[in-house]
């Protein structure tokens, strides 16, 4: 009797599976019409993408109504003023003077400390500002310039960069990653597009706080799309651009390096392939750095601007290893900067190493995404001078992996948002933060993907529930309670501790996942590459 029912059960189960696979193959799967977004997807990926991106743009514009960092806060203001100042410098001085301290360019007042591509971007945007509001970028007199129209113009430069770079890159990534992957349902792809485009952290930092992360991240996404489509040269070109827009893109460099190396080694002439890639990278670098190649001095000056070691091992309360452990070990006081540089370098590299080795041995598209996640996690947790905003970098590959790892992504997103919360409060963006937090999780939960909690996360659900509850409490406490006088940064430290504990767990988890997932499908990819 028991056996019979068990048999029937298994039969039913296999029937169910069969049905499921049928549904997956069926292009217009009707069984899924109750899904909230079913009608979004019936016209194909392009239309879906278009309508979602319109909505994503609306969200961005709405967030951009809110204040930017350092609004009305002299004398140094914030990142908004920094970007505006770079535009001012870029359009008023020749390119060779941008990184040098001079009477016209005071590097102590928001001196340019990003690679040349950022400077070029500032130049273009500066021209745009000059066209409509020349006052806002005039040399010297425009310092601390704030106006209704000036703010709008600046906001529109970020919006346009988003539309021109990030959105198309995401579109190509979707095409590249899902074109050969028939195991995903169409509504899942719509979900993936939505969470890639409506990334609350990115929107808050770019359109609220004010930065241009969408450019470097967009270029990175484009590079990943290129590599997923087997256009390695395009991919490495785009990634070099990303690297030259923000040096932080180097967080992804180990993954790119190891994946491309692994791929090359599988081709007929590994050395030729490596040379080709090297040539593209070097060529791109040369073109971008052309104004600074005339002398070693100029080159070194720019490089010294890009690596501000004097600013210390960490800043504020970032949820990485050094800052968190500094509660116990006063790194900054005990060790010299030189030693710390060495320590952080070895720590970063050694934690990257497992995922790099994996990608060199068995490169695969999925493994590549995991590799990106692992290496950016290593950099975020262990490298020198990390900002809280750098959490955007590991968040990007986590978002791209969201269909494979929904629970990892959702969990990560909660704490990435929490880690940004002190910054958000400083910038007076709390209301935008809460609204977009709610919006994202409504969208995530609209699909079944967002609700399924599987794998390693299932067994520890209670634990995660608890930490999530702590995060909620911390939000409220941080807003409402005044910290005790002896420990004015008590709550920042608590937020940091909680986030760090989650991040380190996620980093370990993703490393393990990279090794176990890719084991399952190495052969297929080997064949494909030959």
């Amino acid at each position: 009797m028991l056996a019979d029912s068990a048999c029937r059960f298994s039969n039913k189960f296999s029937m169910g599976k069969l049905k499921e696979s049928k549904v997956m193959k069926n292009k217009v799967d009707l069984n899924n019409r109750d899904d909230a977004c079913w009608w979004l997807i019936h016209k194909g990926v392009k239309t879906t993408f278009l309508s979602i991106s319109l909505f994503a743009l609306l969200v961005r514009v709405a967030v951009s109504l809110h204040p930017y960092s350092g609004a009305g806060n002299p004398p140094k203001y914030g990142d908004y003023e920094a970007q505006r100042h770079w535009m001012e410098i870029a359009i008023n001085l020749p390119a060779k003077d941008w990184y040098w301290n001079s009477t016209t360019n005071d590097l102590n007042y928001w001196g340019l400390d990003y690679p040349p591509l950022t400077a070029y971007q500032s130049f273009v945007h500066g021209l745009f500002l000059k066209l409509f509001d020349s006052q806002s970028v005039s040399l010297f007199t425009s310092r601390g310039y704030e106006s209704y129209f000036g703010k709008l113009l600046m906001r529109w430069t970020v919006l346009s960069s988003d539309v021109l770079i990030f959105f198309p890159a995401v579109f190509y990534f979707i095409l590249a990653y899902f074109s050969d992957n028939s195991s995903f349902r169409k509504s899942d792809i719509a979900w993936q597009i939505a969470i890639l485009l409506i990334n609350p952290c990115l929107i808050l930092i770019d359109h609220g706080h004010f930065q241009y992360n969408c450019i470097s991240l967009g270029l990175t996404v484009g590079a990943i799309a290129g590599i997923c489509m087997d256009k390695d040269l395009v991919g490495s070109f785009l990634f070099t651009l990303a690297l030259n827009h923000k040096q932080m893109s180097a967080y992804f460099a180990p993954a790119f390096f190891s994946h491309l190396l692994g791929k090359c080694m599988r081709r007929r002439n590994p050395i030729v392939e490596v040379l080709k890639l090297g040539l593209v990278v070097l060529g791109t670098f040369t073109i971008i750095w052309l104004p600074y190649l005339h002398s070693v001095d100029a080159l070194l000056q720019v490089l010294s601007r890009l690596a501000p070691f004097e600013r210390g091992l960490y800043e504020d309360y970032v949820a990485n290893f050094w800052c968190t452990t500094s509660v116990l070990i006063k790194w900054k006081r005990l060790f010299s900067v030189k030693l710390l540089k060495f320590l952080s370098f070895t720590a970063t590299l050694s934690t990257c190493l497992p995922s790099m080795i994996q990608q060199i041995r068995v490169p695969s598209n999925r493994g590549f995404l995991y590799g990106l996640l692992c290496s950016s996690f290593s950099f975020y947790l262990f490298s020198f001078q990390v900002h809280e905003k750098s959490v955007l970098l590991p968040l990007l590959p986590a978002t791209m992996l969201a269909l494979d790892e929904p629970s990892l992504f959702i969990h990560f997103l909660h704490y990435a948002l929490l880690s940004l919360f002190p910054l958000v409060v400083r910038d007076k963006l709390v209301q935008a933060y809460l609204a977009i937090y709610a919006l994202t999780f409504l969208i995530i939960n609209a699909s079944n993907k967002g609700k399924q909690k599987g794998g390693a996360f299932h067994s520890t659900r209670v634990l995660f529930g608890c930490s999530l509850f702590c995060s909620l409490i911390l939000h409220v406490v941080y807003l409402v309670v005044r910290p005790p006088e002896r420990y004015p940064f008590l709550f920042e430290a608590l937020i940091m501790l909680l986030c760090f504990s989650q991040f380190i767990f996620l980093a370990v988890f993703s490393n393990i996942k990279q090794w176990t997932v890719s084991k399952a499908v190495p052969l297929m990819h080997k064949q494909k590459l030959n």
Partner: protein
Amino acid sequence: MEDHRRHQQEDISKAPNPRNPVLQLLWFFAIAACIKLLLIPSYRSTDFEVHRHWLALTHSLPLSQWYFDETSQWTLDYPPFFAYFERFLSYFANIVDPRIVHLQKGLDYNSNTVVYFQRITVILSDLCLLYGVYRLTRNLDPIKRKLIWVLVVWSPALVIVDHLHFQYNGFLLGMLLISLSYLEEGRDLIGGFVFAVLLCFKHLFAVAAPVYFVYLLRHYCRGGFVRGFGRLTVMGSVVVAVFAAAYGPFIYHGQIQQVIQRMFPFGRGLCHAYWAPNFWVFYILLDKGLSILLRKLGFSIKIPTGSFTSGLVGDSSPFSVLPQITPLTTFVVVLLALSPCLIKAFKDPQPRMITRWVAYAYACGFLFGWHVHEKASLHFVIPLALVAVQSLEDARHYLLLSIVSCYSLFPLLFEAQEYPIKVLLLLSHSSLMWLGFSAQFDKGESIKQAGSKTKQQHVQTKGSVTATGEPFRIRFIEKVYLVGLLVVEIWAQFLHPFILGGKFPFVPLMLISMYCSLGVMYSWIWQLRWILTPTN
């Protein structure tokens, strides 16, 4: 056996809809609420201060002075229930920040507390709209239901008027929808009651009163003279009771005349400051054209002294050739335009038609009314959303109408900051609408199957005609019109200031309202034809 079958049926009816529709609807609402919350810091019109002042007024003054107060230029000109509503809100406002409800200190108060408080009351009062939509759609099949939710709950026009410009239309339209839902169910007494309440909130909704009257007279008060008369008495006493509750206190204080004067300021002109896209735009333009033409021909035409917007001052007519338009004229024209619908309602009062009739009444009021605001187009666009999914023709018409009415609201937000917001609201909603309609009507075959399934499951499906097999496409002429809309926008927003500079600053707005009134006229004719078609 019978029992077993019933069980099976119940099983099936549960199966396709595992998730609770209320939760789903709340999801739609929550998404919209998040966007509205994000939009809080945006531009707000003087209506914001108007409503703030009303909060202060109703809080600080005794009822007997509400309609006499002149502390601010924004005197109370809504019916009493709205004043009571403001009194209710002011109770919370006082807790949040006492300065909001202070009569003098609160004037032009614009701190964060007051902005957040008032904006959030609008967002929350939209729950009324949500309930109305829920009542009207709960028996529809899930796909249509969602489409309607998208059309109403995510309506960009409502966001522009309520959450940017600042008003409480969502709340009031919600009451209209609740009333319609009761009428559709055949529960006329409650429907009439809710409508009477609505009239005491905002008297502009009275345009549909003739339709309500005729319909209720013929549908509710039927069944012989005695029974009919009895029911008429019941309905009459309900309505009188509602009005007594609203106006009673003011009658008691002997102020009814003052209240009426405040509510109907006929001192205002034929058109609002920005001409609503209605029939009178053509009338004015015709007059201008004729006067120029006649002057060219040698006739001596006096240049009119009055203006269209500033009301009737003395005897001076703002028109130089065509006859003067008085409030009475517009009243007669509206009634004339309504008459086919009234006759239809008199002859054959059908519950399933009431939404269309009421929408048509508001369309007439919008096209031919006196001093119409562009915002009044919401009064017929929102109810029409509920019938838009019934047939391909309906969907086509609604797509166009919704775009036109939303576009005609653009001049409300004239600052640069809101420009991308209004454009993106319109574009994203139109794309959703288009996707939704084409999903509904394109795959006729597959939907027919699904539709027949759901018909078995839901015994009570309303408006079940879907699958026509014909794909959802926009007609050529409609496409041309929409492209023209784009051209008008580009001219008004970019080319005109660029080419002509500061000259003729009124031309862009005139152009927009003229072009939109073409679309609204088309919609009106379409609705009229639909009502007159004998098969319906």
